[in-house]
């Protein structure tokens, strides 16, 4: 027999987490990572739109071939410590884990089955402890990572991100339909790079919109600056998590 013991321990590792949110976009480049990072900061430092109490937040960069949350947040820690498993890095009030830490800054080229294996490993060994939120920054599309999360972490709820573009909207609508059929909870969608005219999307709840923010780029790498952007101010108004 050849039994992979990691699958059996995932739910134990996540057992003290109240809510798991998969920030998903389906189309690439719509702002998933930016929203996942800033949402984590907002929840950890200021609470949510409807509650001012700060939250215990974990963030996991699951875009294994395109990790960039470490850059957005300006993470300085070199390597996660290990004790009873891997301890997420703690910076800016967020517990953070990413396969970036194990890549020595190199490009990370992984095929599908390798991606599944890395996800399993990270979920099996990361010791999150108690969290109000675990935010998952998802890669674009509905391939290995998305399917693995549905399989192993069915309690994860999807926060869908779309731009006003028909290309993005079509993909979100189709993907949301499939996810609902698979019994995945969808919190709703946020329109990013919005022109201020956010439109209904095939029965998906609009949670709010974020304008294109010319100053966002300058704030990348600095948590305090990120929180001062119009991007963060708009995101802070969005309720429903």
């Amino acid at each position, binding site marked *: *027999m*050849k*039994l*992979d*013991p*990691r699958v*059996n*321990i995932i739910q*134990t*590792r996540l057992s003290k987490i109240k809510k798991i949110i998969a920030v998903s976009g389906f189309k690439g480049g719509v702002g998933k990572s930016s929203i996942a990072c800033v949402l984590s900061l907002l929840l950890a430092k200021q609470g949510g739109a409807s509650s001012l109490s700060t939250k215990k937040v974990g963030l996991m960069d699951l875009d294994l071939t395109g990790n960039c949350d470490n850059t957005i947040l300006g993470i300085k820690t070199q*390597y996660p410590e*290990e*004790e*009873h*498993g*891997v301890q997420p890095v703690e910076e800016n009030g967020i517990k953070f884990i990413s*396969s970036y830490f*194990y*890549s*020595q800054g*190199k*490009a*990370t*080229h*992984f*095929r599908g*089955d*390798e991606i599944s*294996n*890395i996800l399993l*490993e*990270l979920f*099996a*060994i*990361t*010791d999150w402890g108690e969290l109000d939120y675990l935010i998952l920054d998802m890669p674009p599309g509905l391939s290995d990572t998305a399917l693995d999360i549905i399989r192993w972490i069915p309690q994860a709820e999807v926060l869908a991100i779309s731009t006003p573009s028909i290309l993005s909207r079509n993909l979100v609508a189709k993907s949301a339909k499939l996810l609902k059929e698979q019994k995945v909870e969808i919190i709703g969608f946020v329109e990013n790079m919005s022109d201020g005219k956010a439109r209904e999307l095939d029965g998906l709840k609009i949670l709010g919109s974020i304008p294109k923010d010319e100053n966002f780029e300058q704030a990348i790498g600095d948590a305090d600056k990120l929180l001062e952007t119009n991007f963060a101010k708009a995101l802070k108004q969005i309720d429903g998590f």
Partner: protein
Amino acid sequence: MHEWALADAVCKTAEDIAKDKNLIQVDEISVVLGQVQNIKPKVFDRIFEEVKLQYSSTKSTKLVTEIEEAELTCNNCGNIFGIDDRTGFEHQTSEDMHFIPETARLFIKCPKCKSVDFHITKGRGLYVKEIRGETK
């Protein structure tokens, strides 16, 4: 020690199987350790002895470990190759592969065609080979 988390996964798996198969307890468990992940049997053994006490069916389980050598298969040219311990890796590289064996792709190339696109066909990481115990 991140071995602790993996030993915990092994014991939890044994506990689940013991319940499922109606075992009185788990007498013996065989675990295979992959060369790429490079978990030292002695370290795993020591941690297992501590972790096993947490689960009712594994309190007196005997652990047997064996190492599976790495077999890497190149997706580009089909070459099958291993990892030569004598070459030695930088400390950081061993650490990275210890946590995430798939990062071998970042640090090793196919010796024949120099492609970075190979997969680990054997000796990746840890798995359970056998769980033994008497039924109730």
